[in-house]
C-alpha cells in the first residue's frame, strides 16, 4: 500500500472518503473505450494520488466529454502539460473534479513535438486560456482554438520557456512595448 494515500494531514484517507466510486468509474470508462486507453494508474498501487487514465490522443475529446457528461466529472480543475523529454514528447494533463462527491480524476494524453491537440473549448470555455498557456510555454498547437496567441510572454518571443531545452536564463529583450492588435476587437 502506497503511503501517500493514507496521510491524515491531507485530504483524508482517499479510499475512505470516496469509497469505490472511482473504481466504478474506471471500469465503466475502460468498457466504453477499450482500445483507446493506454494505461490506468490507481492510487494505492501506483505512484499517483488520484486515479490517472492515459488515453490515446484521437479520442481525448470524446473521452473527456463522456467523463464530463455521463459520469459527472464536470469541473475542469486544471489543465497543463508536462515535457517528458521522451517520445512522444509531451503529456497534456486534465484534472477533473466531480461536483457532488468532489472526487478527482486525472486524464493524460501523449502528444509528440509538432503534433496538434484537439481543443477542449467546446466542453469548458475556461480551457481557452489554459490552452493558450500550454501553447505559449510548450509550443503545443491546439486545433480549433479561436485565438491561439501567446499569453504570458511577449508576442515576439521565440521559443517556449517551459520546454526542458529552453535555458533558465534565456533572456530576450524588446525595446518597444508589445504591439497592440486592433483586430482582436473587431
Amino acid at each position: 500500500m502506497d503511503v501517500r494515500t493514507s496521510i491524515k494531514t491531507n485530504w483524508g484517507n482517499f479510499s475512505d472518503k470516496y469509497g469505490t466510486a472511482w473504481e466504478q468509474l474506471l471500469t465503466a470508462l475502460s468498457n466504453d473505450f477499450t482500445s483507446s486507453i493506454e494505461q490506468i494508474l490507481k492510487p494505492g498501487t501506483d505512484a499517483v494520488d488520484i486515479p490517472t487514465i492515459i488515453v490515446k490522443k484521437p479520442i481525448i475529446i470524446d473521452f473527456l466529454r463522456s467523463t464530463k457528461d455521463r459520469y459527472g466529472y464536470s469541473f475542469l480543475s486544471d489543465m497543463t502539460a508536462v515535457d517528458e523529454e521522451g517520445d512522444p514528447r509531451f503529456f497534456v494533463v486534465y484534472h477533473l473534479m466531480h461536483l457532488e462527491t468532489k472526487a478527482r480524476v486525472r486524464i493524460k494524453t501523449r502528444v509528440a513535438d509538432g503534433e496538434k491537440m484537439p481543443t477542449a473549448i467546446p466542453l469548458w470555455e475556461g480551457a481557452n486560456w489554459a490552452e493558450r498557456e500550454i501553447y505559449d510555454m510548450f509550443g503545443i498547437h491546439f486545433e480549433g482554438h479561436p485565438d491561439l496567441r501567446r499569453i504570458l510572454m511577449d508576442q515576439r518571443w521565440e521559443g517556449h520557456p517551459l520546454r526542458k531545452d529552453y535555458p533558465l536564463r534565456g533572456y530576450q529583450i524588446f525595446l518597444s512595448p508589445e504591439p497592440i492588435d486592433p483586430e482582436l476587437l473587431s
Partner: protein
Amino acid sequence: MSKDGSADFFTTKLENVVNWARKNSLYPLPFGTSCCGIELMATLASGYDMARFGAEVVRFSPRQSDLLVVAGIVNLKMAPILRNIYDQMADPKWVISMGACASSGGIFNVYSVTQGIDTVVPVDVYVPGCPPAPEGLLNGLLRLEDMIARGETHAHRRMKSPDGKTPPTPLPAVSSMDAHPRGSEQRKV
C-alpha cells in the same frame, strides 16, 4: 547676498533653496507591480504615512509626478513600458527602486525578468528587501531627500551636463552572477 548685488553667492543660495523646495514636495508615482506594491500601499496608508516626509500627493499620471517609485518586478515585457513612463515624466525626476526584484532581479534570475531596472532607467536610491518593510522605504525616501538637497542625483547631473543627458554611470554591463554560462542552472545532483 552682498550689498553690491553680485550674483555668485546668490545663485548658490538659490540652488539650495530650490533643492530644499524640491525635496519637500515630491509627487510620487507608484509603479507598483507586485508584492512591493502592497508594502508601498501600507507606507502610504495610515500608520506609516509617507505624507509626513513631503511625499504626500500620489499622482498616477507621469506628467504630474516627479518621483517614480518602482515597487516590484519589472520583467522584460514591462521594461519598455517603464521606460515609456519615465520618459513622460518632466525633469527633474527621481527614481526609487523598491525591493530586490526591481533593484537586481532578486531571487528571479530567469528568462523573463529584467536583472535590475537600472538597465532601463537611471535609479537614484535602491531600497533592499523582499519586500522592504515600510520603514525601509521611508528611509530610502529620506536618503533621496538628502541627495536632492545636496544636488547629487541623476537629475542634477543631467541639468549640469552640457547635452542634458546623465553621464552613464560605470556599472558593470553584466552582473557577477552571470559570469558562468547561463542556462547551466539545471541541477544535476
